[in-house]
Structure formats: structure tokens, C-alpha cells
């Protein structure tokens, strides 16, 4: 291996290794396990190919790549089959009641609002990082995030079944 290759491998390792777990959780929150594994591999390959384009804070950029790869994966017919299997599994293994209620509430929002909220709460991103992940301006991200929070709060408040208060969750990302 040449010195350049060696340096590139070290840089890739420094960028990608710490991102694997956050990316796994990002994907687990949005798709089934099989698709998540496939997309994670794709994201890492993109990261290797475009290593020179990775910004100083790589995670929001990698989330952006993952979103695009996930969208591609969702176009395939197999995705529908896997999703059906995943739904069947979830029906057999119900999670915490309030968790399901909040996820139901998210599903009632516009997809772009729900995604903003996921990035904020589950990935733990601030407005500037959300902007990097979505490819929008920080100002637009802040405004949209504020609106999305308000909409979710309204949905949760309006439906008595979803208005149960809970304790705080674990660490995101």
C-alpha cells in the first residue's frame, strides 16, 4: 500500500468509524434491519469514494448521504416486502404504549416536518446540523423546526390517547 493510500485509509477510519453507530441508529429509526444494513454499507462506500468532500463535521453530511441512499433503496420492490415483514414483526412485539402514540403522532405530520423532528430529537442535531443534513439554509432549518415542534405538540395535545406525559428518553445519536 502506498503512503497516499495509507493516509487515505487512516483518514477514512477516523471519519467513518465513529459514525457507524450513529448511522446504524439513524437507519434503524427509518427502515427495516435488512435495508438498514444494505444502506449502511452504501453510505460507507460513498464516504470512501468522496472522502475529500467530507466536511469537518462529517455526521450531518453522512446523514444526508444516508437519506439519499435510503430513498434509492425504498424505490425497489423488495423494500415493500421487507416493510410488510417488519410491520408483522412489530405487531407481534408491541413497544411501549406512549412510544407508539408518539410515533403515530409523527406519522400524522408532513413527512418533512417529521424528519426535522427526528433529526432534532433522535439524532440530536441542532438547526445548523439539520440544515447540513437536509441541504437547506440554517435559517430555514430553524424556522421549519420551530413550526414542526409546534405542530407535533398540537397533535399530541389534541388527542387524549397521545397526551400521556413520559419521562425523558436516553441519549440520542
Amino acid at each position: 500500500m502506498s503512503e497516499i493510500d495509507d493516509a487515505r485509509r487512516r483518514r477514512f477510519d477516523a471519519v467513518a468509524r465513529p459514525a457507524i453507530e450513529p448511522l446504524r441508529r439513524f437507519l434503524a429509526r427509518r427502515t427495516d434491519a435488512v435495508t438498514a444494513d444494505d444502506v449502511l454499507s452504501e453510505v460507507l462506500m460513498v464516504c470512501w469514494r468522496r472522502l475529500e468532500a467530507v466536511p469537518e463535521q462529517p455526521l450531518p453530511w453522512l446523514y444526508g448521504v444516508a437519506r439519499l441512499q435510503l430513498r434509492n433503496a425504498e424505490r425497489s420492490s423488495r423494500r415493500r416486502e421487507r416493510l410488510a415483514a417488519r410491520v408483522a414483526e412489530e405487531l407481534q412485539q408491541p413497544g411501549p404504549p406512549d412510544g407508539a402514540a408518539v410515533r403515530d403522532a409523527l406519522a400524522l405530520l408532513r413527512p418533512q416536518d417529521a424528519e426535522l423532528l427526528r433529526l432534532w430529537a433522535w439524532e440530536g442535531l441542532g438547526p445548523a446540523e439539520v440544515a447540513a443534513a437536509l441541504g437547506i439554509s440554517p435559517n430555514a432549518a430553524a424556522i421549519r423546526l420551530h413550526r414542526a415542534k409546534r405542530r407535533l405538540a398540537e397533535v399530541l395535545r389534541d388527542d387524549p390517547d397521545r397526551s400521556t406525559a413520559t419521562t425523558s428518553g436516553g441519549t440520542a445519536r
Partner: protein
Amino acid sequence: MNDDQLQARLRAADPASGMEPLPEMRRAALLERAALATAAPRRTRLPVVLGGLVAVATVAGAIVLLLPRPDGPTGPAVTLRAAGTDPTVSCAPLADFAVEGLRGSDLALRGRVESVSDGTAEIVPLEVYRGAAVSLVRLRTDAGGGPALDGPVLRDGEQVLIAATDGSVAACGLSGVRSTELQRYYDRAFG
């Protein structure tokens, strides 16, 4: 509800909150595969997995080409041997690398058992994931009793997933009666 309360409720609903981190070996394999796949496609096989598969494959025999069928799937028929159980080979580590192991095979397919007699199952390919098209697979075992893949005896009409190297069916759970879990491995390996 203020921002902190809203965030707390969302985090309590996080479907990934209970995820266990990947073992370091899996993380290293992911990084290695990403770099190798980009540098030289199809160099993604893990030597340790191939070593295990070859050890298992050597238990059984050779590939025999037969004449093609006049109708149905195109390509020649092949005869495969079901690998016997080699007590010196541990299957447990292979389970962790099923996808890599499957990618190391030279023939992989989903098929339907058409008939079973005299220790040979005839299997019609429904989908070939790896290797040239074949019209029929004949699966033999050296042991007594009916044809088997890692235990279960094959029956007419059953769907099976088979991966083979040099005419020997990969064992250790990489071939067998089609199940959701096994199909997932194949989808990941060849999808």
C-alpha cells in the same frame, strides 16, 4: 409543552434506543469492505470465512453437468453433493458472517423440490443469485436416508435456498429450506 418536554417524549419513543453496538470485528469488516469494494469490486470476501467454507466443502464431491431440459429454466442441469457434517469445523463463527460466506459461493439459487428418491432431490431453480443459469439441480447425499441440508429432510414442493462451491453445498446454515431468516441472508448477499 415546552421544547424539553417534547424532546423527552420523542426520545422515549426512539425505536433505536435499545440497540446494541456492533462488535469491533463487525465494524472493522464494514470499513474494510467499503474501501475494498470501491478500490476493486468483488474483493469483499473474508479469508476466515472462505477458509471455513472450503473446509466444509471438501467433505463432499464434484459437479456433474447434464443435458438441458427441453422446457422450463434454461441452462444445464447440475448435480451437487450435500456437504456432510465435519466435526472439525465449527459452524458458530460462520453464522456471524453468513452474508460474506454466501458471497464466496460460485452458485447460489432459490429452487423448488420437484421430487425426492434414492437419496437424490431434484430441484427446479426459481431464481439464480450467483453463477450461470441452470435448468435443474440434483442434490445427493452420501449418508443414508433422504437428501438433507443441515438436518431437515427435503420434501416435494418445498422451496430451498442453496449455495455451493465447486459442486459442494455450503453447510453451516448457509443452505437449507427457505425461511425468512435465510432469505434475508441471501437478499443481503446478492440483492
